[in-house]
């Protein structure tokens, strides 16, 4: 079995292809990061060089942090992402448990109703969502974003968590029930700890689109106080498009947190992607 792949020549070819593609994937990001730390002259004279002692320059970052409310935007993005995530995971797990554990009339229809949200983008309902948010007096608040993202993330969370919950052995629940433990205790003290790995996977999946979204911040919360990083970067760069130091610094500031998160969670994410699809 191993013979057909490990012929040295073909292995070399495979590494060339994969390595080449990896370079292509990383090049733009590395280019931006390294030029963000250079003087303007160096950015233009030699864009492909790493910053040296002579060309090292942090002016772009100073300007971005002083001139824009970048830290505020980070705070907003973080608040919105964490709050949506908490609600999606808690409510999603509760609904997944109810749908997969109890038999009741309408169970299947309710499950299908929730699943529709996976295929139909919530964005198409924007006209009415905006009206609703205006009526609720939530325009330009982070709450509006949290509610919309929670609604957006729930279907996928319910689907993935249902599958995991269905795999939990019956004996565990029956034993608890025989001891007279309430359904809520069973869920919070037996089931939730058991599905922790699945919850982590769902968390990583749900977090990314929420953190990166441009559409809803642009429409529901474009105010200066409630901008998220994505919207902030978008507007900042639009204004300072010729100030290359600032633009590159702004891009780097927006990229770095994701890089850090990815280095922490990449294993979880990839395990989730591969195990989820195998089933």
């Amino acid at each position, binding site marked *: *079995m191993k013979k057909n*792949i490990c012929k040295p020549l073909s*292995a070399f070819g495979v*590494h060339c*292809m*994969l390595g080449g593609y*990896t370079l*292509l*994937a*990383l090049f*733009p*990001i590395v280019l*931006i990061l390294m030029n963000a730390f250079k003087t303007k002259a160096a*950015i*233009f004279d030699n*864009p492909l060089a790493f910053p040296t002692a002579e060309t090292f320059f942090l002016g772009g970052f100073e300007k971005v942090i002083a001139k824009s409310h970048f830290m505020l935007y980070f705070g907003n993005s973080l608040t919105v992402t964490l709050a949506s995530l908490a*609600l999606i995971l*808690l*409510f999603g797990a*509760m*609904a997944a448990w*109810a749908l997969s554990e109890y038999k009741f009339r309408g169970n299947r229809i*309710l499950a299908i109703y*929730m699943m*529709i*949200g996976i*295929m*139909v*983008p919530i*964005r*198409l*309902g*924007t*006209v*009415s*969502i*905006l*009206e*609703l948010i205006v009526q609720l007096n939530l325009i330009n608040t982070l709450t509006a974003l949290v*509610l919309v993202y929670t*609604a957006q993330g*729930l279907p996928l969370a319910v689907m993935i968590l249902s599958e995991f919950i269905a795999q939990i052995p019956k004996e565990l629940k029956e034993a608890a029930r025989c001891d007279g433990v*309430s359904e*809520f205790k069973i869920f919070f003290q037996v089931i939730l700890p058991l599905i922790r790995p699945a919850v982590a996977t769902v968390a990583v999946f749900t977090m*990314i689109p929420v953190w*990166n979204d*441009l*559409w809803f911040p642009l429409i529901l919360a474009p105010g200066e106080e409630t901008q998220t990083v*994505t919207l902030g*970067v978008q507007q900042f760069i639009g204004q300072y498009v010729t100030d*290359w130091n600032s633009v590159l610094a702004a*891009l780097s500031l927006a990229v770095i947190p*994701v890089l850090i998160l*990815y280095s922490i969670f990449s294993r979880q*994410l*990839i395990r989730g992607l*591969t195990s*989820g*699809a*195998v089933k």
Partner: protein
Amino acid sequence: MKRWHIVLFLAPAVLIYSVFSALPLLDTLRLGFYATNDAGASHFSGLSNYLTILTDPAWSSAFWNAMCNNFKFFLIHLLIQNPIGLILATFLSLKGLKFARQYRTFIFLPTLLSVVIIGFIWQLILSPLWGVSESMMNFVGLGAYFQPWLGEEGSALITLALISVWQFVGIPMMLIYAALLAVPEDIVEAAYVEGASSWRIFWEIKLPLILPTLGLVTILTYVGNFNAFDLIYSVKGAIAGPNYSTDILGTLFYRTFFGYQSQIGSPTMGAAVATLMFLVILCGVGAYFYFVQRKLTRYEL
């Protein structure tokens, strides 16, 4: 009623999902049948919004232009992103490949970054002002072919689609990779013992077995592409220039809803455009479930 706990478990999720996703969607479909007069009052107007979009020359040319561009955008993803994903996944799933995890991690990385950021990064790289791509092309002797691709009507849409392909190739790669890992070892082993080449094993055993995943990847690409907005908006703005050559349904929806330049926005027309987008997506999803998935499940083990 002793099963009230079921209600308590379900209520928060069902409520939030209904109020902020399902009902607004239905309401948007309803709003498409209304029109607002100058005073701002809305009244039922039947299919008039749709007639305007599809028959009024000013509207219909914009709509079909966006639709056509959107199909091109999707086709480029289908024909370039997914095959590249398949090739990368096939290589990654080879047994005993070193550094497979590192390759996987790095190639997937761009997928996680905001489309806005990716759009700007490529805008800078492709900009003739900075000249990074020009000097790199000079380096391999192709400098004469350099063009400001993002700025030209003929190439802007293709360039944007390729940027999107570059960013999202990690998703098909991962899904196909997972499907390839799930191909039963003994079948491959048996074919190998029978003397089949790895090329033949790929075409005649692995590929048929992962067809359901390829179908899923296709429909995910379709829904994602017909819902795209961020990349075009951040690189080209709501006008989707040059001369609307990069306009897709998402940007058309935004302009119709919020207005731009001399045209004022209209929620009801916006709702009509959203409904048309919904129908396009629904057709794709429906076709996938009725034709592709039903036929493909036969191959599943």
